[in-house]
């Protein structure tokens, strides 16, 4: 048994961590938060050069061909530093979707460009408020043209291509749109986490090509989002861990009543509980990584497990990191709010916690009882 990353994978982690410490300090995150840029293009280019974007893309499609375990390691590191780059949209979702269901032509056309960072993809499924369901999709795909509105779309502002869920006949299909080909307008949206831009995309007779069969869209999207949930879970894990570290460091440094505040049980036990939820999330994430890398039959259950556990842990740790910092934690100047923002944004991306809680139990009960042991 080996529920751990290999030495090589940990070396990769060290390498990327060093790179990100240099290239993605909090200042870089703040540049996107406060400035006009919608992502850190230089950082994204650097990640492409380093092979991060192509880690799980086969070499024949311009990737590095390492695998998904390696991508999990990288995701955790990106999450730790809140990297303001569209890796989730472009790699976990769009590249993953093409690898799962794209035609040979689609894969050849786009995977190399996604791996090199030349092209950025976005995942445009959602319409309106509440839980996403096939019945809520009103965008239409007919005669190779797409018409409809998708919102919010993460990284829609900076994407070159979009994968869109649209109604085709009686079913829902996924279609790929080249956003430069016309018939597309974009509008940026304010969000709780401006370090990851959210956009409303409007399509009017935009040329599009289907991914997979007619009416297979929801099925494919579900599979892709399960895989992305595990990768995003590692981002959340990285964010939770970093929030805990920040809180611990502050609890060691900050004095009150003549003592380090970490010597007060109120703070000490709050941090212990953060450690508990982060540790549970890590163990669940490793289970998810195994399921993802092996495409195990348990993947849907593992994905929901990761999602619920990592979302809970990151929200818990980010929230209590602010609380540990007291008033300072609520200033713009301290970085606590960056993690709090991201924890709440990631809790909603791919669908909210209550949706995944429900999915987890639905999937467990569809399997056998042994799944619960």
């Amino acid at each position, binding site marked *: 048994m080996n529920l751990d990353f290999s030495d090589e994978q940990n070396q990769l982690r060290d390498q990327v961590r060093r790179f990100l410490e240099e290239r993605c300090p909090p200042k870089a995150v703040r540049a996107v938060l406060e400035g006009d840029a919608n992502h850190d293009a230089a950082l994204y280019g650097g990640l492409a050069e380093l092979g991060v974007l192509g880690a799980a893309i086969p070499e024949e499609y311009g990737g590095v061909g390492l695998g998904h375990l390696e991508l999990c390691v990288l995701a955790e590191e990106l999450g730790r530093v809140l990297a303001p780059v569209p890796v989730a949209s472009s790699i976990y979702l769009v590249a993953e979707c093409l690898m799962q269901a794209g035609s040979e032509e689609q894969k050849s056309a786009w995977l190399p460009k996604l791996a090199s960072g030349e092209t950025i993809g976005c995942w445009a499924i959602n319409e309106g*408020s509440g839980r996403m369901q096939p019945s809520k999709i009103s965008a239409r795909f007919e005669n190779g043209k797409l018409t409809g509105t998708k919102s919010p779309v993460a990284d829609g502002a900076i994407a070159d291509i979009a994968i869109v869920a649209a109604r085709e006949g009686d079913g829902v299909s996924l279609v790929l749109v080249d956003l430069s080909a016309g018939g597309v307008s974009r509008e940026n949206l304010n969000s709780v986490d401006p370090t990851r831009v959210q956009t409303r995309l409007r399509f009017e007779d935009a040329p599009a090509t289907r991914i997979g069969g007619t009416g297979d869209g929801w099925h494919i999207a579900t599979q892709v989002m399960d895989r992305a949930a595990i990768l995003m879970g590692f981002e959340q894990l990285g964010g939770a861990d970093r929030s805990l570290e920040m809180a611990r460091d502050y609890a060691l440094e900050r004095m009150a009543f003549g003592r380090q505040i970490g010597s007060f049980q109120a703070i000490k036990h709050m941090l212990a509980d953060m450690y508990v939820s982060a540790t549970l999330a890590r163990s669940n994430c490793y289970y998810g990584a195994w399921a993802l890398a092996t495409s195990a039959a348990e993947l849907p259950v593992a994905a929901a497990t990761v999602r619920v556990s990592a979302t809970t842990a990151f929200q818990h740790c980010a929230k209590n990191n602010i609380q540990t910092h007291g008033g300072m934690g*609520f200033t713009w100047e301290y970085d606590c709010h960056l993690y709090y923002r991201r924890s709440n944004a990631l809790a909603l991306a791919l669908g909210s916690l209550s949706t995944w809680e429900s999915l987890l139990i639905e999937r467990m009960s569809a399997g056998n009882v042994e799944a619960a042991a």
Partner: protein
Amino acid sequence: MDFNDTPQEAEFRKEVRSWLDANAPKHLEAELKRASFGSSGLTSEDPIKAGKAWQKKKADAGWACLHWPKEYGGGARTPIERVIWGQEEGVYSVLSGPFTIGHGMCGPTVMAWANEAWKEKLLPPLASGEEIWCQLFSEPASGSDLAGLRTRAVKADDGSGDWIINGQKIWTSGARNSDWGLLITRTDPDVPKHKGLTMFFLRMDSPGVKVVPIKQANGASGFNEVYFTDVRIPDSQRLGAVGEGWKVSLTTLMNERLSIGSGMSTGFPELFRFCMEAEVDGEPAVADSNVRSKLAQFAIKQSGLKYTGMRAISALSKGETPGPENSIGKLVAGATMQELAMFALDLQGESGVVWDEDSPQNGRFQAMLMRSPATRIEGGSDEILRNIIGERVLGLPGDIRVDKDVAFKDIPTSGKQKK
């Protein structure tokens, strides 16, 4: 048990209502209803100007500072009359926001500690809203541990008796609009921390005072940093004896905790309204059993705080002092609001991340999410409030105090040296 006024209370309420009906700035009502989290909601008028106008009008008619004696511009009303006034004034009370700290905390401190001449000079313009006060207590290195403050006051070496102030305060609400500030300083670092403090008041336009707004995590700026560089204060503006500042500050803080409301809001009514409109899996959200379970737990907190407030009012109405129940208000409201906001966003699904005018209730829940962490910290953190309940209400022993008998200058200031 009943929710009715006594005949006297009903009479008073009638009087208040008819005065308000004739005098309240009704053209501002709609805007004021949008007030939240320290924002007055006003856009058509300058909030300070509108506030001063309303306060002056109230003062002229005897409705300002109902808890103050008449001689200093107050209304000398009973506690229950103040509650009734508050209920009737409703949204218009938002206009008096800039005076809350002055009326509730600085004024009573001046009243208790200043000499008669100062009281006659300072209190009436504070009551009538002509002058605004702020409270200069917290510092970057002393939040929960207020007595650990380090802003220094030393006697000027010119024999004038004046004090020279150097240091920094933080979390000062309203410092930009204030005429006066109530300032606590350290005058003796060689004695234990509570013993070397001295209280002053000063003009906020004194040379050497610099006010810098703090940008908060939610992007707003309700608070300020205030820097003091060789600021000179005459000794006549000292409150209490030298070294007695902690005792003076307790007057201020006690008055902070005396304020009685009808319970802090948790955000539940707003969430409930949202759940009446929103859907989960094609059904109204209020029909979903997970939503119901979570709403019910929020509901009992909302109503529990509401009726806790009413129990306090009942005590006042009978001329009794309310019990310690109200100490739970902010502790419950802050944590509930944060959880509740997260759940409201959860129900919005992926769209929950969007925070704009089109979001449900104009993005109220996103604003709650981003503001509620501060509620759990300001005016006593959750941890300090649990200590207060444990010690003052339940009578449990205090924390072990390692800094109690140590000269202030010998108390360690950073944990780094300890590692």
